[in-house]
């Protein structure tokens, strides 16, 4: 139930993001969601794509530094308090969230959020009452 996220190191320079995204476009890779964390000098592009292996190959060929991380994707009810209910579950289970971001599209009328935690396997076992999505579900969204 873990999902592979690709992270790419980006220098804060004009056109770097476009270069990376362009390479994926040329290889016909579909980006399901992404988030960009940035500091003054560099950024980290985190994304979930439909074909991670192929994407890694493309990005490495492009000379990018790529790292894979396992994340968990969770369905979040699209109504007031939806995210809170999920975060409460994480909190009660004692799971620390490093970062999170959202999918643009919904799954069965629910929002989908990506969570990066220290130990995804342990987190999956501890989380109760929240729907954790499988990789296949995610790539099809």
């Amino acid at each position: 139930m873990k999902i592979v996220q690709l992270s790419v190191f980006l220098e804060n320079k004009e056109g770097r993001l476009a270069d990376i995204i362009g390479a994926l476009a040329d290889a016909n890779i579909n980006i399901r969601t992404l988030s960009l964390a940035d500091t003054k000098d560099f950024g980290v592009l985190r994304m979930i794509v439909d074909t991670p292996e192929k994407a890694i190959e493309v990005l490495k060929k492009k000379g990018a530094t790529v790292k894979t991380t396992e994340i968990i994707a969770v369905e979040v009810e699209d109504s007031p308090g939806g995210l809170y209910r999920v975060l409460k579950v994480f909190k009660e289970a004692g799971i620390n969230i490093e970062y999170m971001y959202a999918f643009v599209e919904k799954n069965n009328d629910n929002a989908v959020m990506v969570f990066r935690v220290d130990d995804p396997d342990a987190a999956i076992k501890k989380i109760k009452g929240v729907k954790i999505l499988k990789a296949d579900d995610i790539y099809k969204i």
Partner: protein
Amino acid sequence: MFYSREESINPEELKKLQSERLIKTVKRVYENVPFYRKKFAEAGVEPADIRSVDDLARLPFTTKQDLRDNYPYGLFAAPMGDIVRIHASSGTTGKMTVVSYTRNDIEMWAGLIARCFSMAGATKNDIIHNCYGYGLFTGGLGIHFGAEKLGATVIPVSGGNSQRQIKIMQDFGSTILTCTPSYALNLAETMKEMGVSPKDIKLRAGLFGAEPWSESMRRDIEKLWGIDALDIYGLSEIMGPGVANECLEKNGLHVFEDHFIPEIIDSATGKPVAPGTRGELVFTTITKEGIPLIRYRTKDITRLIPEKCKCGRTFSRIERLSGRTDDMLIIRGVNVFPSEIETVIMSIEGVEPHYQIIVDRAEHGLDTLEVQVEVNEKIFSDEIKALEAIEKRIKKEINSVLGIGVKVKLVEPRSIPRSEGKAKRIIDNRKI
């Protein structure tokens, strides 16, 4: 008119004086320094072969590496009982170059610094504000003793705490400033921020050195402070500040040739260049006792100005320094070798040997050093805090080894240009 009679010595008299002193020095190092005895033998020269300055080129060169190889006291030519002071150049242990002074050396040095001050028009009535660092660095104490020798009042304020510096200048009535040129600019900015006008300060001249600086920087300093800004040159191996100094003509630095014989050589061949041509500056000390050096290669690039100076001093002038033959950087008066930075980078696990050093001079006049390190899969993380921790760690280690603050920047792999020969590790953007 001049601080000392020698400053207007005629060429014949100078040659005679230099020859006598050279012969004495050669004898001194031959008898007291095994390194030189060996080196002379290898070059097939004996003290008896040196009869005048014309024979100077027969002597072998001395390099910074020779000082390091003989660390710490190997090149001293006086017994420790006669050594009254030690100075050392910045750097890590093993990279330090250690120099020594006998009482006569200290006295001679003070006299030369007093000359430098009088070249700026200073007298015993001046109040000298000395911001050079006091310690192993030759700047602070060297200037201090010279100021006292002149009979002036010296304020041993040392570096740092710029606001207090300005307050002291105002309250104590400082008239002469001594510091690095970049610090002079920095202080001028502080003065402005404090709402203090140069008119509130009595400063009228400054001796600035320990780092290269340009004519445009001189103009800035002179304008901001309303003073005469003069270039003072020196290096600890030869003595410290005061080996050469500008007069108020501001057109080259007079080398104190009664104590140091300058030569300009082609750094590739070691042969003298044609008169007036640029090359590597080489000095032979002819009065020092603690650590006399024969034909020391400074790695500084300059030329001897053949024309006579309008000020009336007969000592040769060297042009203001235009560069160095090796990669050594002088950052805020601290000598920095790229190899030292490399050693630090290499010691951190996972970091690749692809790095570049960018030197710049900030608007406030301080030199900045940015070390760019390429990211790779081993050190890359999806978490910003992990990446920042690596930057911080490199920064901290460089700081602890070099003693200066640097900025560390992670860059993309292969973004640092690769070279087929010697890598271009340094990009010096300072406009000097």
